[in-house]
């Protein structure tokens, strides 16, 4: 589609030169690592984890260099054209990368956090016989995720999109001998596929209406489409984003995905992959700019998920599930932010980056706790771990404070920015959304304080034979680095080196600096609600003894929260059971109905021929009588014809 690509572009994209021209190495490095580890077999067992870590660290260093050289490029957007992927008829898909401020931010997050988690995994997986396979899958994930954020067309994004889905499947099912892990992996893949259908259909609509699938082509001409078509594209993209990011109504797979090893939960199901939906919506900003309807739906999805995640997070006793629902809820914040439009993109992405640091840190801390507690995840069997695990406690505590938005830590800046952006809408919707976000902040403070109190404080409720011990340095070092991010990321991204300046080539200039409600007021209100949540948690959990088994007689609200607001039940009764029933019915129809008709026809023919065969008795004289009768009949017929 040369005609279209010659049109006006959202921002000047120039062909890549020098180092940026080699940015495909970012993807190739971890991919090569995965290939060597998977094909090399046991030969690579001894040094496989080192190679896997080295490729990602190498990619991170390359990403840093690339980012610096990108800053020097006019317009800060370069295109790396690689090869023709699919070209037939009017469809021309070229494999290529788009290196711009948005993708650069994600590349740094993925390779940076990815490197830390690789290092952590060296220690965490040290005693697993399949450690090499683990690093191979992690490398595969990093490669696919980089392709997702670097691709220069929706098709390239889709390839990466399903690629991370595969890596996620492999890693959730890493301990595949456990039926729970295998089922969770399958569930994650299937629910992601539901979202993928939306993404695929969006691409089909783009091709049918615009004749192209590249970002350049689509964003340059999307304004020429009818409003309904743009809304359809926006909603279909949102479906894809919901699947990948565990947003309502496709949120149920994410908590189950905690069956995977903890570093996987940290990297894939907290920091990077699940934020791909936010990336997709931010990347498609030119589309959403044209369709307020779809944008409102994004807002609604974000707000609903934010609350669902926060409510469910209050009720679980499994430390990883609480963190998983927290992730669901925090990504709800990000969706809410990017749904606000230009005002919210930067706020949402800043929260995404800050969340990447503190949530990865929290998960690694949880992994360290589990490491100490003989792999138990039940918080009711924790307690009093603060003294036994000082480093873990310190890093986890900083992550906790960052997450609940304690003043001057990461979450404080980024969450407030989202609430301010919501209030800047200056309409009833804005107030509702801000209210939901503030309520969510209170709930976040409640469930995270509950988690802290049950894990690190109070009396030790350890199972017999458990002797907690601090994790080795190879595990604690990444936790320390991430906790530094938890402290500083928010300030750096919002105040010191504003992300909005860096992202300006993608989203345009920052809009009005005038806020409807003063930031100070917002900060005070949010902090107040947060302190209320902490206080409530202390009243409910910290003040009394935590029972070792969960109370059975509880209010309906608690029961609903424990069942994650019945999401699985609804899925099962609305989709799974009718599906199974339909399948069974169809098998019956196919065997009895369709095949039965064919077999019935065959049996009918066979039956009538055997019945006719009965007339052949073998008695010669019967045949003779038949012949005579036949002759008489013929003669009679002749007579009748000639005489009549």
């Amino acid at each position, binding site marked *: 589609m040369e005609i279209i690509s010659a049109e006006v572009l959202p921002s000047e994209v120039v062909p890549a030169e020098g180092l940026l021209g080699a940015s495909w190495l970012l993807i190739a490095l971890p991919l090569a690592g995965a290939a060597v580890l998977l094909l090399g077999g046991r030969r690579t067992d001894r040094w496989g984890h080192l190679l896997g870590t080295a490729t990602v660290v190498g990619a991170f260093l390359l990403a840093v260099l690339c980012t610096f050289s990108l800053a020097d490029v006019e317009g800060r957007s370069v295109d790396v054209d690689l*090869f023709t992927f*699919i070209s*037939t008829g*009017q469809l021309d898909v070229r494999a290529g990368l788009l290196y711009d401020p948005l993708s650069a931010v994600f590349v740094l997050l993925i390779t940076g956090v990815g490197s830390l988690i690789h290092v952590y995994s060296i220690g965490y997986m040290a005693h697993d016989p399949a450690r090499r396979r683990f690093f191979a899958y992690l490398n595969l994930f990093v490669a696919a995720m980089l392709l997702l954020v670097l691709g220069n067309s929706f098709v390239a994004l889709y390839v990466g999109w399903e690629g991370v889905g595969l890596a996620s499947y492999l890693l959730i099912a890493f301990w*595949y001998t456990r039926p729970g892990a295998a089922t969770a992996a399958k569930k994650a893949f299937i629910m992601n*596929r539901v979202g993928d259908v939306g993404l695929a259909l969006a691409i089909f609509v783009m091709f049918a209406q615009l004749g192209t699938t590249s970002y350049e082509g689509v964003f340059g001409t999307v304004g020429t489409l009818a409003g309904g078509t743009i809304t359809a594209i926006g909603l279909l993209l949102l479906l894809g984003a919901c699947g990948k990011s565990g947003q309502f109504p496709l949120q149920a797979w994410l908590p189950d995905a905690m*069956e995977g090893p903890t570093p996987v939960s940290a990297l894939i199901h907290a920091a990077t992959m699940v934020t791909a939906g936010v990336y997709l919506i931010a990347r498609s900003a030119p589309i959403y700019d044209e369709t307020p309807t779809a944008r409102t739906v994004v807002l609604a999805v974000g707000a609903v998920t934010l609350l669902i995640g926060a409510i469910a997070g209050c009720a679980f006793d499994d430390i990883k599930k609480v963190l998983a629902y927290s992730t669901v809820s925090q990504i709800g914040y990000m969706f809410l932010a990017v749904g606000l439009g230009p005002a919210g993109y930067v706020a949402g992405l800043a929260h995404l980056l800050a969340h990447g640091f503190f949530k990865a840190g929290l998960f690694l801390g949880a992994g360290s706790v589990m490491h100490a507690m003989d792999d138990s995840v039940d918080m009711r069997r924790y307690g009093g771990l603060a003294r036994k695990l000082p480093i873990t406690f310190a890093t986890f505590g900083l992550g906790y404070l960052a997450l609940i938005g304690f003043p001057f830590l990461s979450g404080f800046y980024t969450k407030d920015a989202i609430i301010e952006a919501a209030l800047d809408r200056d309409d009833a919707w804005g107030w509702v959304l801000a209210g939901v976000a503030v309520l969510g902040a209170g709930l976040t403070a409640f469930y995270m304080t509950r988690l802290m109190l049950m894990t690190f404080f109070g009396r030790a409720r350890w199972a017999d034979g458990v002797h907690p011990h601090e994790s080795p340095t190879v595990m604690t070092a990444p936790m320390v680095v991430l906790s530094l991010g938890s402290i500083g990321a928010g300030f750096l991204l919002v105040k010191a080196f504003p992300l909005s300046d860096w992202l300006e080539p993608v989203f345009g200039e920052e809009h009005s600096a005038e806020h409807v409600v003063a930031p100070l007021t917002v900060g005070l209100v949010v902090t107040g609600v947060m302190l209320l949540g902490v206080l409530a948690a202390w009243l409910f959990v910290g003040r009394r003894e935590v029972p070792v088994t969960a109370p059975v007689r509880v209010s309906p609200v608690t029961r609903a929260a424990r069942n994650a607001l019945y999401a699985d039940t609804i899925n099962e009764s609305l989709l799974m059971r009718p599906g199974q029933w339909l399948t069974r019915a169809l098998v019956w129809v196919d065997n009895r109905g369709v095949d039965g008709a064919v077999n019935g026809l065959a049996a009918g023919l066979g039956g009538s021929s055997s019945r006719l065969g009965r007339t052949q008795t073998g008695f010669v004289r019967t045949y003779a009588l038949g012949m005579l009768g036949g002759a008489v009949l013929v003669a009679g017929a002749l007579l009748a014809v000639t005489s009549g």
Partner: protein
Amino acid sequence: MSDFPFLVAMIAVPALGAAVVAALPKGRELLARQLSLGVSLVVLVLTVLAAVAFDTGGERFQLTTSVAWIPDFGVDFALGVDGIALVMLLLIGLLVPLVIGASWEDGAPGADGVPAAATEGRSMRFFFAWLLLLEAMMVGVFAATDVFLFYVFFEAMLVPMYFLIGRFGGPRRQYAAVKFFLYSLVGGLIMLAAVIGLYVVSASELGEGTFAFDALRDLEIDPGVQKLLFLGFFVAFAIKAPLVPLHTWLPDSAAEAPIGGAVLLVGVLDKVGTFGFLRYCLPLFPDASRYFAPLVLVLAVVGVLYAALLAMGQSDMKRLVAYTSISHFGFIALGIFAFTTEAATGAVLYMVNHGIATGLLFLVVGMLIARGGSRQIGDYGGVAAQAPKLAAVFLVAGLASLALPGTNSFVSEFLVLIGSFPERPVHTIVATLGIILAALYILLMYQRTMHGPARGVVAPAGGDEPPEAGPAGGAGATAVLTAPSATAVRFRDLSRREIAVVTPLVVLVIVLGVQPQLLLDIIEPAVVATLDDLGATR
């Protein structure tokens, strides 16, 4: 070099090879295998050379040969290939040596505690002879440019397949073979009537009857007659493809056929149906094709979902794979009858990719069955822990089958859907739902057989059980374990021979997933010519 009669050689070499293998004295089993493999490799080399000699920018039909055969009726022994037929020949040339390699130990007594197949102790000379004859017939079907010659190969192809199923198949092989034969024969007879009808029309229009494809293409047939003749060809191809509701022979045949036969049956033979749509239905009967397109598209889309749901309900692995194929054929038919270049190119690419992906899936399932001695999914569990390479190849085949990006099938499925969408949005949206179901049936089968603890015919590892490593967080970790059955065996991983068989296919799955343009450049000109005959809009 391009004067060399490649196509004649590609038919003659395997046919002669089949005769020689069949004539070998009893007891020369190894020689029969080596000879068959050698012959099939010669054919593979010939196919590759033919592909090199083929000029993608040249005339539509190349490498042509034509000899008068029955001059009184204008029948010629005319061969030639366009891009569509060429890629199918490449697929045949590739699959047959692999199938021979995969069947290498069939008929040998079970080794290594592995229960032998139903073919134990049986002389396999004729198996390989029939395979080679089948190869010759398949090449003929795709290379014929004379409609009568096509019909002859179309029917003759049934004979070797009948014997492959009926003599070397599973417990219900007789039933399956007869069903396969009768179904195909009914279609073939209806097509014969249409072939004769076509001859009569050509005789009345040109003054002299002909079966030559190029001459028939230029006929201006009355729309009413076109509809009748179209239906004649269509029914035959719809049975062969197979399109729902004419599909019930395939699960039986594929389940009972020996693995080698099943690979060729689903991988190549069934493509004759979709190939026939493109080569004969569309160019010869353009008006009728447009008239019937809505009906065919509905059948195709219904087939995609219906067969996918049925695949989920199967307990027999081979039947499951057969049903997935029926679902995939729905996609191919959708691509062909959407009448756009992108969709039709995608459909042809789909034909090749499906042969590779499903061929691989069948081969792996066969290796699994060879070890466990059962076709029931429920008899397996936890294979991945004992045979990781087998599980890895199974996963690659499964992912290719569910069209994951990066595998070859993604490109073709994507092309079919994106090409159909502008013309037929509703059909495409419904068909796209099929990709969810594809993920379900593949992953359900994979999880039940490969994941979880050892179960059924899989003996638990003694002592060296992979430790329940890592943090035990699983809620389901306490699932009830089915006691292994009395015939349970330790599963050995892929042997060198098996690795050699699957490697080419795994490599192609990835290579064609990243560089599909290699084939698209060959396919596209032929598809454009076909759609020109049809007078399609785009």
